[in-house]
């Protein structure tokens, strides 16, 4: 006689009335396959935990975003925000889709160049650009976005030395009605700093002011803030034109569109409530088209969208290590996925789906990682089907920031696999090894021997 599939015995008190803090359960289907490949097979071949990225989803998402903007505004250019996910294969997909590169450090700049991105199509942001970085960027005719006056003077000196006329923009910060206001980067619009920087550039012969840039925040849920930002930068560009008879070629509104994730504490899932690319595009293009630019002089619109373009394409697969109860009787489930590789669990209630069949019984559970630390919590409370030891789970919407902000803490970082358009898997970043780690360390001769 074949035995029945085992499920833990559970008994759960039925509460009537309000939904509880565990939310309503929405998982009625296991996620057994990703882009046609069995989760079981992926984990057998590449281990647990495992990051999996869908090339199909990336291309579908960037195409959807481009369409939303291009149908509303004539000149749109996306620039891939490297810090969001700078695995070479991922950047290359975005470059194949026509995105420029947006980088914020010398390391990211070199990464873009080494991938073969044309220097003219690299936007160099951020407060820290060394003289060496700037020299390179000037030589390659990249777009340098100035963050502060010290940088402005350095660029001016280097331009003189290199007998070049670098193309620059200034980063502008402003009040868009969003709190907290990001005013530590760039020059303020309201108090005249932005004008001061513009005047300094326009009066020096050795820089060409080609753009105005802002990045008003991240995971923005209010499209209206972008309307305000676009109007203010348009007004600034028109005033520069009026004062200096000089044309600003582009307005760069940075990144910040919310992805489909659910912010911690939000009542409804982000996939149902967060604004779409069409919502953002509508507000931004209206603001620009309604400003006083002449039709043929409309500036190019640049977008440095990060998380909204990649979050949905990324999955993190993992395994159940154990089920326990806390002293108060709460169900705890421990996964082999910790906050060291799922940094974004500090911000989001990530959706978690079992990878194998389950019944409709569920339990309110706290999901922990394997690190020996109290902060290692993946979900404080989730209503999940019953999971057994060694069962597999799929964590959704992990494509942004995790593969750049992950920490090599206690354990080695896992494989990252890309599933291509033909549903074939490719390892795009190898699991780290002890040798990788040790190769970067040196032990002084007097410490090489010990007796314990």
């Amino acid at each position, binding site marked *: 006689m074949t*035995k*029945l*599939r*085992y*499920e*833990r*015995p*559970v*008994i*759960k*008190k*039925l509460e009537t009335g309000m939904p509880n803090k565990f939310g309503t359960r929405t998982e009625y289907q296991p996620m057994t396959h990703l882009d046609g490949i069995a989760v079981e097979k992926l984990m057998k071949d590449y281990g647990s935990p495992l990051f999996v990225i869908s090339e199909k989803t990336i291309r579908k998402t960037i195409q959807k975003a481009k369409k939303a903007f291009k149908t509303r505004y004539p000149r749109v250019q996306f620039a891939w925000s490297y810090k969001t996910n700078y695995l070479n294969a991922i950047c290359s997909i975005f470059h194949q889709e026509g995105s420029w590169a947006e980088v914020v450090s010398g390391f990211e700049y070199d990464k873009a160049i080494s991938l073969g991105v044309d220097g003219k199509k690299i936007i160099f942001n951020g407060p820290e650009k060394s003289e060496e970085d700037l020299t390179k960027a000037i030589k390659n005719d990249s777009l340098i976005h100035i963050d502060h006056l010290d940088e402005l003077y350095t660029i001016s000196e280097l331009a003189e030395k290199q007998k070049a006329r670098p193309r620059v923009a200034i980063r502008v910060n402003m009040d868009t009605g969003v709190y907290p206001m990001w005013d530590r980067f760039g020059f303020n619009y309201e108090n005249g700093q932005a004008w001061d920087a513009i005047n300094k550039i326009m009066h020096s012969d050795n820089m060409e002011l080609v753009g105005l840039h802002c990045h008003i925040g991240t995971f923005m849920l209010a499209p209206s803030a972008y309307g305000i930002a676009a109007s203010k930068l348009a007004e600034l560009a028109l005033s520069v034109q009026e004062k200096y008879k000089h044309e600003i070629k582009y307005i760069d509104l940075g990144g910040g569109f919310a992805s489909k994730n659910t912010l911690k504490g939000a009542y409804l899932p982000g996939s149902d409530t967060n604004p779409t690319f069409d919502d953002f595009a509508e507000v931004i293009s209206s603001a620009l088209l309604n400003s006083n630019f002449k039709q043929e002089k409309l500036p190019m619109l640049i977008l440095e969208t990060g998380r909204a373009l990649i979050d949905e394409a990324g999955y993190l697969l993992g395994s159940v290590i154990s089920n326990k*109860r806390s002293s108060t*009787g709460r169900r705890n489930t421990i996964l082999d996925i910790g906050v060291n590789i799922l940094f974004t669990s500090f911000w989001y209630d990530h959706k978690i789906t079992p990878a194998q069949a389950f*019944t409709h*019984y569920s339990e309110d559970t706290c999901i922990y990682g394997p690190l020996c630390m109290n902060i290692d919590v993946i979900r404080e409370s989730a209503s999940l089907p*019953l999971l*057994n*030891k060694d069962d597999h789970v799929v964590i959704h919407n992990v494509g942004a920031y995790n593969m750049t902000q992950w920490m090599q803490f206690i354990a080695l970082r896992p494989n990252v696999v890309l599933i291509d358009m033909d549903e074939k898997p490719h390892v795009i970043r190898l699991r780290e090894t002890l040798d990788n780690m040790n190769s970067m360390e040196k032990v002084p001769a007097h410490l090489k021997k010990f007796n314990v």
Partner: protein
Amino acid sequence: MKLRKNIAVSEAGLLFNPVTGESFSVNPIGIEILNLLREEKTDEQIHSAIMSRYSTDKPTFEKDYQDFIGILKHNNLLESHEETKA
């Protein structure tokens, strides 16, 4: 250990405690265990009954069983020793 007498368990897995007015949902393996408890089976008898029907191993089931019993006790669904004696 024994299930309190007046507790009703439906086949669909709804359990009602008339003393407190509380309702619970129980999964099928849970119902089997409740029925075995009602029949005053010992822990060993319950273990072998479940192990013979489900694909699991002893340590796993023992742990889950203890956990289940703990929740039953917590919700006052089992008769305490004193009551059993009286």
